[in-house]
């Protein structure tokens, strides 16, 4: 079943070092990694970041298979980006291959490789974040990180609540979709064959019940929250207090070192 393969935003429970890090650390580390990724210019920098990512995946015990499965939906974007870079990067000297209006330069090949690597690594590291951090931890971390924005009247608590609800319901809705799909298939619905028009039409028996149930759930959730006297973030205390530990400080320092290091390497053209 194709739907079950969607792992986006899904949490893999575990007890590794990475699972135990403070969510804020992981968030900052992920951002730092993305920054480093964009600072990276040449082979050496990419190799360092790739090895680092490999180590993180190994330590987190998430498994390469799950990561690769998560990549499947964005494969097309990656390929298109790679192809565009391949054809549209002009270089000095003679093109390696030339046909009709297209010229492929050595620079183009490198640009394509780097761009594909960059997107793949970027997505893998964000996957790693959501795989090893439960949605609740993630939004807790985000809320704390964005806390200063409250001073300029950004509704930080509401935003993070919305996000945690959205994240919380992704697996539920996937499961629900799966169930409705099975129920309609049991009545002979066919979601796989036919042209684009027929396929779009075949989705009606799926989407109508799905929307109705999403609204029903939203309604029930709102009532449940009001029953527990939810009234927004003001004066709310937390069950789980976030505390930075030695491991977190080490990881944050490492993140800083990584950005600076890759920046310096980029400066020397490595």
């Amino acid at each position, binding site marked *: 079943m194709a739907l079950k393969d969607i792992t986006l935003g899904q949490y*893999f429970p575990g007890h590794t070092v990475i699972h135990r890090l403070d969510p804020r650390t992981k968030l900052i580390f992920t951002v730092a990694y993305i920054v480093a990724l964009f600072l990276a210019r040449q082979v050496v920098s990419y190799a360092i970041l790739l090895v680092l990512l490999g180590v993180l995946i190994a330590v987190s015990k998430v498994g390469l298979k*799950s990561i690769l499965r998560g990549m499947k939906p964005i494969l097309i974007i990656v390929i298109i980006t790679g192809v565009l870079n391949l054809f549209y990067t002009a270089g000095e000297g003679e093109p390696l291959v030339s046909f009709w209006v297209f010229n492929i330069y050595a620079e183009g090949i490198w640009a394509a490789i780097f761009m594909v690597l960059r997107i793949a690594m970027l997505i893998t590291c964000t996957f790693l974040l959501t795989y090893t951090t439960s949605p609740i931890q993630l939004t807790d971390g985000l809320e704390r990180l964005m806390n200063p924005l409250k001073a300029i009247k950004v509704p930080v608590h509401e935003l993070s609540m919305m996000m945690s609800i959205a994240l919380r319901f992704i697996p539920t809705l996937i499961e629900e979709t799966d169930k*409705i799909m099975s*129920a309609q298939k*049991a*009545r*002979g619905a066919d979601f796989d064959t036919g042209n684009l028009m027929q396929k779009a039409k075949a989705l009606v*028996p799926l989407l109508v019940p799905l929307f109705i149930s999403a609204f029903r759930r939203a309604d029930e959730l709102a009532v449940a929250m009001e029953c527990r006297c939810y009234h927004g973030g003001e004066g709310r205390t937390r069950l789980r207090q976030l505390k930075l530990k030695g491991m977190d400080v080490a990881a944050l320092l490492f993140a800083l070192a990584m950005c600076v290091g890759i920046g310096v390497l980029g400066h020397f053209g490595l």
Partner: protein
Amino acid sequence: MEPIIQTEHLSHIYSAGTPFEHGALVDVDFTAYRGEYLGIIGHTGSGKSTLIQHLNGLLKPTSGRVLYEGQDIWESKERTRETRFHVGLVFQYPEYQLFEETIYKDIAFGPKNMGLDEKEIDRRVREAAQFVGLREELLDKSPFELSGGQKRRVAIAGVIAMEPSVLILDEPTAGLDPVGVEEILGNIRDYHQAKNATIIIVSHSMEEMARTVDRIVVVNDGRIPFSGAPREVFAHGDELEAMGLGVPAMTRVFHRLRAMGVDIDASVYTTEQARDAILARLGRGQTEKGAV
């Protein structure tokens, strides 16, 4: 009796290759016979829902085979789709699958997918509506205007309209009031008798099972530890208890009576049987006394 659906060494593993991997069914041999009223019982997560989704080809076995009338349902794509029309499956809380503008159209969804002509579809829709006790004038209404219990009947009619020779229902009475439960069970019995169809009901209510089915299949931990007539199955009281299933309240009372030293037939599970057993015991007591 002639088997209609069979599974041979059926195994199913969910999320193979991820940390969530777990076997839902392990080497299951299951048989349903033509025209029987069969109950599948098991607690939540025992694998009973996984089992029934294999019977109409919604799930593909990780290993093993599923046979409908002796033929492998995964032989070809057409055969799998065809099987879904012969083996109707009503999911748990089926009222959440309704989507059409009118009840009529919703019930007609299945028959339409079968490629039947207008006249035949019309006949089937009206007949199915009759089976579940929906009045004619309701057919042009939106299914979303109905009450929960009535929505469920529309959903069940949607499957009945395909006139399957095997009708599988997953917890068809969950969340209904006692009157609603009786009505739905009555509707299913009507269909069973009118079409001589095989009925497979999934439930975890022993009482309901005891009253309705000819044969019970117990599913636990992805296996079938035992099956048989209700009387035989309830004789395994302790094992059922260990699986978190328990036996009907009436059976429990009689087991206790026996444990307390009362010489009475303990294989009862309905009120009527209990009455007969008690009367038989009293009668015997009297003759014994008379003899003294």
